[in-house]
């Protein structure tokens, strides 16, 4: 599994883990993000069961198990957090930050040792000691209880399934040609994103943030002007395409 530092400042660094060449065929490729600071490590979107052993090895490259203190799940999907039961066994005292409305559902993945930190519908902060992250509401994009993570210091928005692209092979980490890249995003956003109203509400909220990088859970990362290009493109896109009649 690829593991690479993307951005860093004095307090913390962002590391991407993904492009796993050993994963079983037929499993969607996912980006996991690790945020490492002094004595804590946070994993954004820890991933599915199938990915767990590779992801654990990756995380242990950056911190011993007892310093892996926080997990974040933007929503309840299996590719986001079905590995929870294993993380729960692996980590001595972790917190899971996840939408409040999904607690009863996510606990089905197995939680005996992990503390569930509910994120209420309006959002909130994740205080990591050396820095603070904001949970930005992204409900119905695509899950009915959904959050993105904004790092105001490094100007990074981890945008979950928004901005996701389904691209075969081992794509690069960053979008290089935005127009070309839309070919890999269109069908996904049209089908997985159910509500134009929710989409536009999210866009107006996100436009107020100062974003240098938008990092989705699948596919390539948007940098600089491509962030604005994405928001414009998404705004113009009609979503919820499976509704008939």
């Amino acid at each position: 599994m690829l593991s690479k530092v993307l951005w860093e400042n004095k307090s913390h660094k962002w590391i991407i883990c993904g492009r796993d060449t050993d994963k079983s065929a037929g499993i969607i490729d996912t980006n996991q993000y690790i945020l490492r600071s002094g004595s804590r490590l946070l994993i954004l979107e820890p991933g599915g069961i199938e990915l767990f052993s590779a992801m654990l090895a990756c995380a242990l490259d950056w911190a011993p198990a007892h310093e892996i203190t926080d997990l974040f799940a933007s929503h309840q999907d299996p590719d986001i957090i079905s590995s929870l039961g294993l993380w729960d066994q692996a980590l001595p005292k972790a917190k899971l930050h996840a939408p409040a409305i999904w607690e009863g559902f996510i606990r089905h993945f197995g939680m005996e040792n992990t503390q569930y930190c509910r994120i209420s519908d309006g959002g909130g902060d994740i205080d990591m000691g050396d820095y603070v992250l904001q949970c930005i509401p992204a409900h119905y994009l695509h899950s009915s209880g959904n959050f993105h993570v904004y790092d105001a210091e490094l100007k990074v928005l981890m945008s979950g399934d928004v901005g996701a692209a389904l691209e075969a092979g081992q794509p690069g980490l960053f979008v290089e040609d935005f127009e070309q890249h839309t070919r890999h995003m269109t069908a996904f956003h049209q089908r997985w994103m159910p509500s134009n109203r929710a989409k536009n509400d999210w866009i107006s909220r996100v436009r107020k943030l100062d974003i240098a990088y938008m990092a989705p859970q699948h596919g390539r990362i948007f940098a600089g002007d491509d962030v604005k290009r994405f928001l414009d493109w998404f705004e113009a896109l009609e979503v919820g395409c499976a509704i008939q009649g």
Partner: protein
Amino acid sequence: MATRLDLADILTFSQSYGERRPPQFVVAATLAGELGQIIHVAKRLSLSSKNARVITVRAGEWGRGFSGITQFIDEYARRTIMCAERINQASSELSRRSIRNLFMDQVVHRLARVIEKKREKSESIVGCHRRLKDNCQAMARESDAATRRLGQDIAEIRECTRALSSLVAICRIEASRAGPFQEALGVIASEIELSTERLLRSVNSGQRILEMLSGPLVSTR
């Protein structure tokens, strides 16, 4: 990139689970990461030895003494790399296998509860339970054997490290006899010493982590 665990870190890691034992799959993955460091250090050692060889060629008669040692350093670095690669691969595999065993163990316990609660006499359920339980036990035995092999590989690295420690002293003596090349070979001797000390620390950490593996598989029930 990777974290390095000193003995205090390992103690904290072990104690952080409280009454639980650290799960075998975490310990094995931790061992893989820690011993993975040895590969980098041993490669650096091998590079230092190659640099020494270049200097001793230039030094001619002055470097003859040091030159003889570089072959041995290279050989021990090579053996260390081979063992560390084996450990890295085997402990990663052990971690993956432990995760599979954990799943299987959970299924065995759930089936046992079904059989107990429902007084289930269905041949298929009872048979499935027995089969999976046997598989779990077989996997546990394989894990024990893999752990023993890891111990043997760590012991071999320790042997190499001991030999390298002795060679460091000889490097220092030969560097001091190298006349105008004394300083250059002295620097190389220091690099070799530093790498050897790092190897020793990693071996000690690896040994401590390995000791955590020598228990039964951690069950969730």
